[in-house]
């Protein structure tokens, strides 16, 4: 019900607008009552599609690419989730005396990306928080000492989201692919995966209705070749054993996601 903030640099609608009260909403019973809605196994990640570079079918010759084009770009789909990312850099940093390069991330939802009310153009607290999370999850993988005085910027936009934790995981995977496309030196690509706890079972890669029904969500960013975890985020309560189990399963799934992304990146070179 928040009032739309009037920004004179945009076309504005009325001061206040709300979603209508939807009747005939799909019966919000337990989404896990009869297996998963889309027939996936409990530890199955939604199908992934990655594409680096421009979105057109034929990659234009790099020699003739536009001067304003990003250093690297990627488009990532995971089920209904769609994320687009552009990476610039290494380019001149803001702190000229820094011995290490810096990695900055700007995460945004498109105004229509969420299944509920339209998002305001004003950057929300959650978007700032996720930007920071992405920086923390990815930065350990980049050889920042190789880029003194420089900065690397990643701009991520979510076109469609379906499950918050899964969307963040998708954003991490998308940035990894874009960094590889930009030729940034990295120790390893970061792959991320999310899970939700329903009852006593961990369910991989929850869609929005599943996430709403889950009592706990877990997000892990992991570097499979180095076998190092770069980021863990858990919401909700579990026993330590359950967390252990989740970390184990999640890292396994991350390895599978990683394989998919790497296979794509290899194919794109040929």
């Amino acid at each position, binding site marked *: 019900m928040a009032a739309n903030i009037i920004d004179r*640099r945009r*076309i504005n609608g009325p001061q206040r607008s709300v979603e209508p009260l939807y009747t005939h909403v799909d019966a919000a019973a337990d989404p896990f009552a009869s297996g998963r809605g889309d027939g996936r196994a409990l530890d199955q990640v939604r199908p992934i599609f990655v594409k680096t570079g421009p979105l057109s079918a034929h990659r234009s010759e790099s020699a003739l690419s536009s001067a304003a084009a990003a250093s690297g770009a990627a488009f990532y789909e995971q089920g209904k989730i769609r994320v687009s990312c552009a990476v610039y850099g290494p380019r001149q940093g803001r702190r000229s005396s820094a011995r290490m390069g810096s990695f900055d991330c700007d995460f945004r939802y498109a105004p229509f990306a969420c299944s509920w009310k339209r998002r305001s153009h004003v950057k929300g607290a959650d978007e700032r928080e996720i930007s920071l999370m992405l920086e923390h999850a990815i930065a350990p993988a980049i050889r920042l000492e190789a880029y003194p005085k420089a900065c690397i910027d990643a701009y991520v936009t979510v076109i469609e989201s379906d499950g918050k934790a899964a969307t963040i995981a998708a954003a991490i995977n998308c940035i990894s692919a874009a960094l590889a496309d930009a030729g940034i030196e990295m120790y390893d690509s970061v792959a991320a995966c999310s899970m939700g706890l329903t009852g006593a079972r961990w369910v991989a890669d929850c869609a929005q209705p599943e996430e709403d029904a889950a009592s706990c969500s877990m997000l892990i960013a992991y570097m499979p070749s180095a076998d190092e975890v770069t980021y863990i985020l858990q919401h909700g309560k579990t026993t330590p054993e359950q967390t252990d189990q989740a970390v184990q399963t999640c890292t396994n799934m991350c390895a599978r996601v990683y394989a998919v992304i790497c296979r794509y990146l290899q194919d794109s070179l040929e």
Partner: protein
Amino acid sequence: MTRPDRRDAGQIRALHCVLGQLSRADGSAQFAAGDSSVLCGVYGPVDVRVYDEKLDRAHIEVKLRPATGLPNTKDKWTESVIRSTFEREILCHLHPRTLVQINVQVRQDDGAVEAAAINAATLALVDAGIPLRTMVAAATCAVLPGGAIVVDPTLEEAAGAQSVHTFAFGGDTAGGPLHVDSRGDFAMDEYNACYDICATTAERVLAFMRSAVEGKIAKEALLVGAS
């Protein structure tokens, strides 16, 4: 056909202009057509921010303030139209690494205010002594639902019109238009008719502006001669 303000279809509203009204600006002009009135102040060439600095020419900046309220996207749109129209007509390369700032204040909006803003900007630039390739004049006309074409429409006429056409020309109207904005629902015949009408109107407006500038220079010459 008579119009609400008893003008003929091809008749523009009474033009009025004052040059050098603002004492602190390098050049200024007020241009009014009937109840539409625009005040324009030009500063330049002045210091430019490092970010905007261009090595081979002057940077042109246009700021437009509406008659009421704060500037919004509509005013930004008009700003961009004025800037893109004058960017080429100002001899920018004569003043590299400087800024020419065109400040437009709409005093009263009663239709055809974009044309009035362009005309006011021309006069203010001339008054400031900024070298121009040519003097720019603009005119607006509207096609009413019946198919009648009225020149220099008021806000009321434009709101009910089928299409509204604004053209800006340099000193030689045969050289093609500098700026065109035709919008609404129209056929090319109507567009061409409006083009012709606006071209002749722009010539008349230009003649008026020229005599205003000449009048001011003559007055200044008299003052210099007297002292």
